[in-house]
């Protein structure tokens, strides 16, 4: 296959066309922060954490949804990018109710890790403190909207990998919510197969198993792509 030349952070690379900037960066160990990206399901560019600068283009583009093109000059760690990463992270925390100290995901949370990575020491925006339901109706799992960051990894995994499409999204703006079926309690779903893939896909403490408490959470988001790859093998 023909390769194309690009430059990322002053580094000259020969890469396969058709790949996203994110894929190329991951292959070359160039760090890009992500939250809505989950290997194995389609990228949608929702979280805006993976923004990069491309020479000649004024606005920042999301690395997960932008394909490489010949002679692209890409920057991943400028002050401008760092500024936006910090803002985005702060808004995640300000939008819902995150109390890490008592959260089941404490210490095992991608959002918390992100906070540490961008050096989050305080949040400059007023918290919205929305009144969010905790959906405990499923016999095995809990859905706590207080900790959901609307990455929709659960929605995509449920639809694309499990094929159940229990989860979807309703409303706009900060009223947006993940819903089960047509906005009914998860425990009453007629589509959910209780497979637990959404739990593993979820980067935060929003979806968790009822059987555990803080310190016992095990999530394995990498398992999603493994399943996808195994299915391709057509055994």
């Amino acid at each position: 296959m023909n390769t194309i030349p690009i430059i990322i952070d002053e580094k000259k690379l020969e890469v396969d066309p058709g790949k996203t900037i994110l894929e190329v960066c991951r292959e070359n160990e160039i760090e890009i922060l992500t939250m809505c990206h989950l290997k194995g399901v389609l990228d949608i560019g929702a979280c805006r954490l993976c923004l990069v600068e491309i020479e000649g283009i004024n606005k920042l583009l999301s690395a997960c949804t932008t394909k490489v093109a010949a002679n692209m000059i890409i920057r991943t760690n400028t002050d401008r990018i760092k500024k936006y990463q910090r803002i985005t992270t702060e808004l995640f925390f300000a939008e819902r109710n995150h109390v890490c100290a008592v959260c089941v995901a404490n210490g095992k949370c991608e959002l918390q890790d992100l906070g540490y990575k961008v050096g989050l020491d305080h949040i400059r925006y007023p918290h919205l403190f929305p009144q969010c339901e905790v959906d405990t109706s499923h016999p095995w799992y809990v859905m706590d909207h207080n900790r959901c960051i609307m990455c929709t990894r659960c929605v995509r995994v449920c639809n694309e990998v499990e094929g159940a499409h229990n989860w979807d999204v309703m409303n706009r703006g900060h009223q947006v919510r993940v819903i089960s079926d047509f906005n009914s309690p998860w425990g009453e779903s007629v589509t959910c197969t209780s497979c637990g893939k959404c739990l593993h896909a979820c980067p935060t403490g929003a979806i968790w198993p009822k059987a555990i408490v803080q310190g016992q959470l095990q999530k394995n988001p990498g398992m999603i792509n493994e399943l996808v790859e195994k299915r391709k093998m057509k055994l």
Partner: protein
Amino acid sequence: MDKRRIFISPVTRIEGHANITIEMDDNGNVSDALFHVNEFRGFEKFCEGRMYTEMPTITPRICGICPTSHTLASVKACEMIQGIQPTYTANLLRRLMHIGQNLSSHALSFFHLSSPDFLLGYDSDPAKRNILGIAEKYPDIALKGIRLRKFGQELSERITGKKIHIMGIVPGGMAYPLTEDNRKALLAWIPEAIETVQAGIGIIKKFHEENAEMVASFATSPTLYLGTVGPDGEHELYDGKLRFMDADGTILQDQLLPQQYLEFIAERSVNWSYLKYPYYKPYGFDKGFYRVGPLARLNVASRMRTALAQREFELFKQMNNGKPVHGAFYFHYTRLIEALSDVEDAERILNDPQVTSTHIQHHGRWNYEEGIGSSEAPRGTLFHHYKTDETGKLKMVNLLIATGQNNPSMNRSVLEVAKQYVKGDDIKEGMLNRVESTIRCYDPCLSCSTHAIGQMPMVIEVKDKRGVVLKRLERG
């Protein structure tokens, strides 16, 4: 002339924030004393709507000194909801962690917060009447106290990896086992810990002898007592049943299940404090004052469970011919007897061959709508009571905390001491410190903040009824 008021705010060297108002009558005599708690934390309300299994993680945040007791009461309530029991090893590990917390709390109370009064004197320079002052004059004692606290914290840390807001106590048992290396490391502490507690006992006994009159007359109102006991009435902190005793030593109720607490305890709110006022229901609000905590636990107990503590306990029992000892000052002594029993008990548990077993958790799921659990916090019995819907979501949370139960008596003790030591608007620093130290006898945990060195400024105001300040005294 109008009534005058002395207002002490905030009380130093206790956990949390509090104010005391002393009301004076027209002749400059103390007529009333109110101990206010102004911090409202609303735990009960904001836990509603959460999963019951989150409570063992949420409730230890109520207090940085007694998180383990909250976790234990909470997991017990969860275990009642699930209808399961922890494993044998889990019970051992929980006991160890509970002992650790009790020890470090008692060490903090005695060595850091109270020993300055005993060793430096009530009327010594307030700027130095703290652990730093002790470190200057009695470096050996200060170090011992700090190390005892460290041992207590290690008991948690070496089991769960955390010192304060511990994880790892879960419904059905424990999340982490104890390794052989950690078991050995903990055992190595025992001789030093026993020696330190005994040194503390030496200090308090000497103070008792040298200040016999003051100790004997210090806040001595009789009350009822509540504490947890084992099947034979022995002293118990983690897992037992409840005993109520009256002021003369008659056992009013014995071997009550914690689940029956509402049959015997009622609560009333008062308009000047956020703490609720619990009382012994059969005796009503006016006569039902009861106390909890180390003094109460030793008053109600028939014996201690370990040898050295039993010897001290017998001396304690002689003080009032086998009847309950009422003086608030004896909280200090009983705290140390408990600490001694803690260390001896830790040694016994660490030598149990099952302590390092990895069979540490039974697994359960929601089965019942209601759960009640109790445990003995350093400051006394606490209860957690949850009601859930059929998915496990909390509909009702009631937390009865130790300091709340001591509150009515604390108030009365403050009044007693104020009457003895405060006259007119002639307020001397040492007198006020005595009022404060009455509160400190109970070692109240009013919120989760810890002010171990107690550099909080204190403002004392003598006010008349209209709020006009007649006199103002400041320190800090």
